[in-house]
């Protein structure tokens, strides 16, 4: 979806990051600059861990600020975005690095990043229950916010309608 968005010139610091990502991963990733300080790196699930490790060790991103899960029923895919931030990285506090990964809806699995970024813990649990995505390697992939007796499909899937809401509303 980001393809339609006007690309912007990255800030000088972000420009370095884009070059570094492109030279290391080449064809394995597709890097988009959404705003001067918002970089989005799309990859597949096989390379996700390697990319996250590189972001931590070489690019100095030290924590995860958010994990978003989005259902795209038309593509039969679920998109997971990890947003990484940095406290100790030089000049990086204003930069958010988004790692984006799409998985097929009928095989919604991807490796957990909890060993690389412990801060993804609760975010991954929430994505697991809200979209039914399994994060392999997460030590405690249990429900977080939904009631224990929730028996419907994961509610953030587009197929789930809120009670009382009609189709197309």
């Amino acid at each position: 979806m980001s393809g339609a968005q006007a690309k912007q010139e990255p800030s000088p610091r972000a420009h370095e990051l884009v070059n570094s990502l492109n030279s290391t991963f080449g064809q394995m990733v597709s890097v988009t600059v959404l705003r001067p300080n918002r970089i989005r790196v799309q990859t597949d699930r096989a390379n996700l861990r390697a990319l996250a490790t590189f972001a931590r060790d070489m690019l100095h991103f030290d924590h995860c600020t958010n994990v978003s899960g989005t259902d795209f029923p038309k593509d039969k895919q679920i998109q997971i975005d990890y947003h990484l931030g940095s406290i100790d990285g030089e000049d990086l506090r204003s930069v958010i690095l988004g790692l984006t990964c799409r998985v097929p809806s009928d095989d919604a699995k991807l490796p957990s990043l909890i060993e690389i970024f412990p801060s993804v813990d609760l975010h991954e649990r929430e994505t697991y229950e809200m979209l039914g995505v399994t994060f392999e390697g997460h030590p405690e992939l249990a429900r977080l916010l939904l009631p224990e007796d929730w028996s419907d499909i994961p509610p953030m899937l587009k197929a789930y309608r809120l009670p009382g809401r009609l189709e197309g509303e």
Partner: protein
Amino acid sequence: MSMPLASSGLQTAQVAEDKLVVSIGPQHPGAGHFRFTITVDGDTIVDVAPDPGYVHRGAEKQTEYRTYLQSIPMLERSSLTDVTNIIGPYSLAAEELMGIEIPPRGQYLRMIMSENQRIMSHLYWLGIQGIFLGHSTMFMWPLGDRDIFVDLGQMIGGARITYSYWIPGGVRNDMPESFKPRALKVFDYFETRLKDYERIFFQNPLFLKRTEDVGVLRREDAIKLGVVGPVLRGSDVKSDTRIDEPYCFYKDLDFEVPSYKECDTYARCMVHLVEMRQSMRIIRQCLEKMPLGPVRVKLSPQQRTNPGEAYARVEAARGAMSFHIISDGSTKPYRVRISVPSMRNLIVLKKLLIGSHVADMPAIYWSLDYWPVEADK
């Protein structure tokens, strides 16, 4: 110790007799609508299991059914002590997708309301922290003084708590002329009041005994676990979204971001105290500097955005609040993801409580300023 049952092959584990599991919440008067269980060995906490979700209302799902503007009153219900700051990043992200610029006066009004909200939220926090530590004066004073700031917010926003003031396109209305003299009078009063707070509570030997070296969160752990706001600044990190990635006109203002090397509950409490002073300093500067002019760009109720995505954040009272919006170009957002500071700080509850005494639990728990409704969304 486990022994197989001969016939079934089941394993049974002997539960230690000297340990007790205690359930705190969800109806506990202190915990809010939030439950966690602690396992205690005598007076020492040996395990903690947080169990949020009692006030989960599906705010993210509900945005799918509403236009960009309709979501505002619903979203601010998630964080009633901090309504301006929770819709701040939502509006910033929506504006980024709409590609609109906000008039300067609107930006200044946003900062005024945002800082007023921070003081209100911190005073609420201080009242509860006071009563958690058994200091009932520190419950009554802040909650009484908070009402004066609620009045100030009402002068601009019209309502007492839920203003729906910071909206995509600017702010809902201009402020009345009587606001400036009233606000300056309130700040003069409250600055003397803060000295009283310090004298009676923050320098109180009992307060110091209950908070110093209690619930220590080391700098490296705070960064690794991704905590935000006063918890992060209490752990010796001078990080604040208003400085790190300034929005509105914060880059033109002069204010300090506190941080403390102690990394304990005392440090987190002091951050709140200093921030209230700095918020008043910011509003004073805003009132001096703000230009005349329009306060909003008028948008259609069915305003469309460009397809794409935006990630925006502001410094809310409890820390960095961020919204990730994915748009397909229609009048309703395709996906709104909220990353709230309370949820990001919950991760350290386990780390801080394990090994501490049961009596220290309220002080540690509330120093995180964990707001269950905000975390559950």
